[in-house]
């Protein structure tokens, strides 16, 4: 079974709002193996909503994930007060599983606010679990806006793969 699916099922049951973004999100838009990029991380984009963040942490802990802020375990109690502080700083919390899955719980998607992404997200299904996923266009535009070296490498490779797979041969 996919490593994210059981967690996503629990998040859905608790009505947590999130969308998958990043390379993991882009992978779900693949229609062929040639567009799937190796990654062990998943990026979940969350709204700036303390109750939602607390619920996310709670689900992650119940699923056996450890929670981190930078390189330190996330402080306790993991309550609304702490969530408010995290949201004020738009800080990233990270959940790591014994199975070596790393999930970044981010409140920031460069160039976008959550509601915009949420309105246009698409639901894909993995192992019977619904996975809310950001539009491919939004993921690509955000990576372009972020412009880190690793984002540029991804975009260059992704664009090349799309051209190889989709562009019609020149008529001649």
């Amino acid at each position, binding site marked *: 079974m*996919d490593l994210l699916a059981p967690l996503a099922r629990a998040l859905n049951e608790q009505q947590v709002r999130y969308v998958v973004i990043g390379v993991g999100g882009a992978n779900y838009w693949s229609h062929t193996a040639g567009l*799937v990029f*190796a990654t062990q991380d998943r990026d979940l984009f969350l709204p700036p909503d303390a109750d939602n963040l607390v619920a996310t942490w709670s689900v992650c802990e119940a699923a056996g994930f450890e929670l981190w802020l930078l390189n330190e375990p996330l402080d306790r109690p993991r309550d609304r007060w702490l969530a408010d502080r995290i949201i004020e700083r738009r800080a990233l919390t990270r959940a790591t599983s014994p199975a070596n899955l790393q999930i970044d719980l981010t409140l920031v998607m460069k160039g976008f606010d959550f509601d915009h992404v949420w309105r246009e997200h698409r*639901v894909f*299904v*993995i192992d019977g679990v619904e996975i809310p996923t950001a539009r491919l266009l939004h993921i690509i535009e955000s990576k372009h806006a972020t412009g880190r070296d690793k984002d540029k*490498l991804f975009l260059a490779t992704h*664009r090349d793969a*799309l051209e190889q797979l989709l562009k019609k041969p020149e008529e001649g």
Partner: protein
Amino acid sequence: MDVMKSTVEDGLRILREATEQAAQIRIELTDEYLALIAQVEAMPENQAGADKSWVARLLQWSTEHYAKATRRV
């Protein structure tokens, strides 16, 4: 069978070259690239409710495959 010999220096050199290359890349969201993205989003395989379990399987296989990789010198 030929076996490629590698050293830590080789690995570091490759990483250094990749970093330098990445810093020089200029990616523009051209109309052509955006049209390809729109084409992907419109595919029947990418409509709401599409089953993407195969993507998860492929990633899992890839992770396990490379986790077993060993260096031969």
